[in-house]
């Protein structure tokens, strides 16, 4: 009898001190209470003996990852390997990321105070329900083309005419008495004010996720209180979101003023209506994220480009009939999956991940050890490639960028490097990303 289905992840949340379950999300069938109790128990027992259990691997790629945040909340992720799961190490990193994100997500919604000072468990349980839709989004990862949860870099879209939009966003934020304004197109950041980019990368990613869930709810505008896990974990700000066009949302982080109504009625129409055409052209960029002026070689299946300095990323999958001719079995979702797996594969073994600021020192000790393999290299890995049956993947790292490419199997292996460097320089020269 298996308690979990293939490839599914279950998330358990308990109070760290007493082991009272706060919520479970994920699998359709909840794990029996006894199992939850034992999973929590072994970790607590170890903690008492000075042995901190951090993860476990089972045959077939199953994984359990534990993590305690601020000595108050324990998060456990249980995954049952299966076809979609990566190998042990990859899966572990994915789960570690997930736990971090879930915690920050809880802070974002409830604020750190309520989570750290557990006074009323029953009330907390009730309050936590408001995080569920965000957490579910993290768990399911059903939205294609969003890799920010993994990369901790903001998923961006490069609009064809950024200056116009930039001015509009700056103006809109100013009018709303805020320094933090951002325009989302298809759930990715098209332009944002300078201050927005100064937020911790993880906050940007979380806010993007929040805006995506809010806009998925279909409302034209909303006013949502948020705590910034890094910037202000205890004081809430208001996140105002307005839908400009289907697929295009603008939002600002602001204080008590202006009211949602005033902003919606006065500011939005006034500032954004002249730009509808520009927005439409922006929407037409679509999932490609890159303006049409950037040429992509036809044998490139998917790409993920990360700017290591600004912590932004661009990703796209281009699956045309040309590709389907050569391999009809390849689907778009599979390409995204492969891109993700290759990203984790490269990052867990060869490339360095910039420290995400959101991890506090004590938590860093728990999460930071996953890179032990990387320290074994006496020389610095620069590029890597992987030839599998479905595609050829190439990753390269420069001081400013990281590029991950999936290419058709028909591309000769010795040409991979040229294609990759060419693609990188093409994009950079065309968009100054």
């Amino acid at each position, binding site marked *: 009898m*298996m*308690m*979990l289905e293939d490839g599914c992840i279950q998330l358990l949340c308990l109070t760290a001190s007493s082991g009272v379950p706060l919520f479970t999300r994920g699998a359709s069938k909840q*794990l029996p209470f006894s*199992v939850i109790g*034992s999973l929590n128990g*072994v970790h607590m*027992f*170890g903690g008492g*003996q*000075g*042995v*901190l*259990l951090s993860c*476990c*691997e*089972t*045959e*077939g*790629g*199953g*994984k*359990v990852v534990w993590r305690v945040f601020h000595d108050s909340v324990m998060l456990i992720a*249980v995954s*049952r*390997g*299966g*076809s*979609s*799961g*990566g*190998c*042990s190490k990859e899966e572990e990193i994915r789960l570690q990321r997930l736990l971090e994100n879930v915690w920050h997500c809880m802070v974002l919604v409830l604020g750190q105070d309520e989570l750290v000072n557990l006074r009323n468990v029953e009330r907390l349980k009730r309050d936590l329900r408001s995080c569920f839709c965000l957490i579910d989004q993290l768990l399911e990862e059903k939205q294609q083309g969003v890799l920010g949860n993994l990369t901790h870099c903001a998923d961006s879209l490069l609009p064809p005419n950024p200056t116009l939009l930039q001015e509009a966003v700056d103006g809109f934020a100013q009018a709303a008495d805020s320094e933090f304004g951002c325009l989302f197109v298809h759930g990715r950041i098209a332009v944002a004010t300078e201050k927005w980019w100064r937020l911790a990368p993880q906050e940007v990613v979380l806010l993007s996720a929040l805006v995506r869930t809010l806009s998925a709810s279909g409302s034209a505008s909303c006013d949502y209180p948020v705590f910034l896990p890094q910037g202000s974990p205890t004081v809430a700000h208001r996140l105002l979101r307005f839908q400009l066009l289907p697929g295009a949302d603008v939002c600002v982080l602001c204080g008590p003023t202006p009211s949602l109504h005033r902003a919606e009625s006065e500011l939005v129409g006034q500032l954004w209506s002249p730009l509808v055409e520009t927005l439409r052209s922006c929407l037409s960029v679509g999932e490609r994220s890159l303006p049409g002026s950037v040429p992509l070689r036809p044998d490139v299946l998917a790409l993920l480009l990360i700017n290591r300095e600004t912590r932004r990323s661009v990703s796209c999958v281009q699956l045309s009939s040309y590709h389907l001719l050569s391999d009809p079995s390849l689907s778009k979702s599979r390409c995204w*999956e492969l891109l993700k*797996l*290759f990203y984790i*594969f490269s990052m867990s*073994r*060869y490339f360095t991940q910039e420290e995400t600021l959101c991890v506090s020192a004590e938590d860093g000790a728990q999460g930071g*050890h996953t890179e*032990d393999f990387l*320290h074994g*290299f*006496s*020389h*610095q*890995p*620069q*590029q*890597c*490639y*992987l*030839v*599998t*049956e*479905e595609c050829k993947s190439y990753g*390269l790292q420069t001081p400013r960028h990281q590029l991950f490419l999936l290419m058709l199997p028909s591309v000769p*292996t*010795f040409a991979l*490097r040229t294609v990759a460097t060419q693609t990188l320089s093409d994009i950079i020269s065309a968009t100054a990303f």
Partner: protein
Amino acid sequence: MASESPGRCSKNTLSRAQRAKEDGDNGSTSSSFSSSDYNDDLEPEWLDDIQKNGELFYLELSDGEEEATLAQVTANQCLSTNHVRFSEKEAEVITEQTNTQRRSSRKKGEPALKKLARILGRKRRPSQRKGSKDGSRGKSNSSPPASILKHQPGQRQGMTVHRRRLKEACVYLNPKRLASPPAPLCDRGGLLEALLGVVHRPAWTAGQKDQWEVRTEGRLTVHGLIPNSPAIKCGQILIGDVLLAVDDVDVTSENIERVLSCIPGPTQVKLTLETADLDHRGGPSDSSTVHKMKASPPVSQLVRLLWGEDTAELQMAIGHIPHIVMYLSLKLDSTSLQEEEEILYQYPMSEASSQLKGVRGIFLTLCDMLENVTGGQIISSSVLLGKHLVHVGYWKEHNNLLVVGLPAERVPLLSLQTVVGDVVRTLKVMYGTLDSAFCMVDHAPRLDHFFCLFFQQLIQPWRLREGSPPSPVVSGSLFLDGLPAVRWLTLPPEIKMEVDTVLSDFESSDFGEMSEDFFGLRRLYVILGSCLFYKSYLIANHLPKEDLLDVCLYCQHFCLLPLASEQRLGQLVIWREVFPQQRASGGGSAAPGFTQPKGRHFLLIVGLRHLMQCVLLEAGGCASPALAAPGPDCVYVDQVKATLLQLEALEAGMEERLNVPSAPCLSCADWFLPAATTRDRLDSLASSSPVFSKLAGAIRRSPSGSRGRSLFGERSHKSSPQRSLSDSGSEVQMDVGSAAPGLSPNSTPDSARRHGGRRDSLGSGGSDGSGGSGGLFKTPRMKHPNPFYLGTLKKTLTERETEEMYNTIKLTSGTENTLFHYVLMETVQGIFIAPTHREVAQLSGSIHPQLIRNFHHCCLSIRAAFQQSLPARDRRAADRPQRSGWGLGPVKEHGVLFQCKPENWTDQRKPAPTMTYWVIGRMLLEPVPQEFYVCFHDSVPEVPVEMAFRLSFGLAF
């Protein structure tokens, strides 16, 4: 060794002189069998060391340096051996009684062990040799007993003629070891003897008249020291000393036991001793002794570990690093109140490991629970102990669970499973099942020893090998040892054929009048096959792959391979029952109607100098069934020894093969850094390399073979003195007679002649340089055989063409040789080839070693990717259900580009020069499964498939 004494030494020299003379006498008949004969007449040295269960691990060292010194002293070229015995059962007390004691014990062991030998004894041809041998033996018996009395070199400088003085000595004591050795020892000497290794006989003291003092009652005079004990190892406690205090607590014969019993765990204690007068020691023998003691190199930690000497110090050095092995029972009997009863076995007892032991409940619970949750047995967990990240590997068998905890900085998670799988397989080969290994109480000391080696090799391998710098990364050994294959050395076909012939002759068990057939008896053992190692390289294998891997795992675990390459073995004899995994599981691929004979299997490993032969024997089946626990049979051991002696004649060829660069030439990473000017590069070429990239030179100048050859000739001219130096004192002094007599002043013309004579008499291939000066300048005509397809490829090229090809062999394309390193594994036969250690050493450079380390580390990752994407076919995965498909799908090829910079780049104005290189792994399934790992400079794009192809078939020929 401290226990070596002048008396013993002179005895050895004497008998050796005799032996050498005999060698000279009958040498011209060139039968190497003859030299083994006199071993038959004697009881072999290792007889004493056979354990009750028939197992034997006998290691006797002969190290080149000591030999050289001795040769200098005696002008006599022969083997000097450093006898040290390893026996857990028997403490050999070196006192007046030594000889009698030993002889009696020998008699005890005899009848059971020498069945066949006895039968043969009747038949033995009479020989003078026997007489002479016995004579020398008698002499050895009558010679003064081995005594460790006051011959410590460190002793002399500090000690002067004071009549009595106090001194302090620090020793490591480990009471935990006491649990293991048999109890009877303690009856006589108590803890003093068992723990400290000091023999004190109150009765003797009473009987003796002490000249210097009025003896007070209860003084603890040292009457003897137990070999391998802490006391003897510290080198400061001498017979005749009086023990006054332990850690500043005054001791007498009354309270000593109490004081010693208060030592809780492994610790260092300070002993205060009163030492006696040094003056009355016999003077004359000493100048040579001192010389010898100085010259004799320290015995490496590895050897001491193998000898089973006290390992407390080594253990303490890693005591702070958490590591543990536990065998836990999953069946908990809640009614029993006994604590810790679920721990069936545990090692070590250090503090860090006790923390892990404390949380064994976690491991048990997880193992119990997770199977139902995630649908698979637990494989590993990672836990954080303070700052140490520890990976814990699991292996469940029946109702018991093996838990191995290793520090993450040594063993990355990627290779944890391989490491655990290997140790489990080794244990299964040795004991059949894990249960039988761990559940027998009397196995505990042997398991302690086993796991001590295991952890030492993983955590501080540099302590075991002399001269290797401490490096926190053990990727090299992790990767190479983790391959399901053995390192192979390709030999020139003539030599290979001869080796195979000799091995086949042996395996036919046609021992002539030594065989059981001769007496109409049923065979004791059937020889299933054997494999032969030369300096840690496999050079011939007549075993099926799985058996080969079993044997190799055993050798790897006990570090036998590096041992044979670094130090010359005086004699190594190992005998034990083994449980080859393929045969135990019933041999899946058996044809219908064929069943594996149900027999017992025994592994016999005999090592002589640099050669080591592993023989797998079967009792039962065709041979007579084995009863109880048979010990090694002298005849079989001698036959292997004879085979090895016979093979030694070919050693010159093998050595030559090692000295000459192998087929694909290598480049040194340092040459590619722009920092190195052209001159540097040339210098390093000239100085460091017989292995410089020939092809680079050859191609750049002219592709013609003759030009390349002259270059080559020059090179060998130049490098030969080096070679002879490096080889001095070892088997083949190639150029001594002809080229460089001035360089080896130690060897007189006489000895040189002896060399020549002996070698000729051995009838070796004669392709080496000893024949005359002309030979030196001959290009060693290397025909590198294909490692894998010897039989199928027939050479049709003329010699000239071959030679031309040889000069241009190159794995990489382009004009410059860009190949740094490679590993090619042939999965079906279970062998791999890689550049030899010597080749790598000759490349020297500062960056190159780093590069190789990096290469191995990266290969770990590449191979892990291959493994994870493959259906379970590997040996480790054999027992486990198939892993589910890997997310990325089957990986065919994986490469990583690295950049390196010279360390300590001080020039601020210029950026440090960089060099980039690829490490690429490729898995080939057609035509034969192979894995190929290669490392080359970035300048030329390569197609690894082609490189692998070239290496395994075509051009590399």
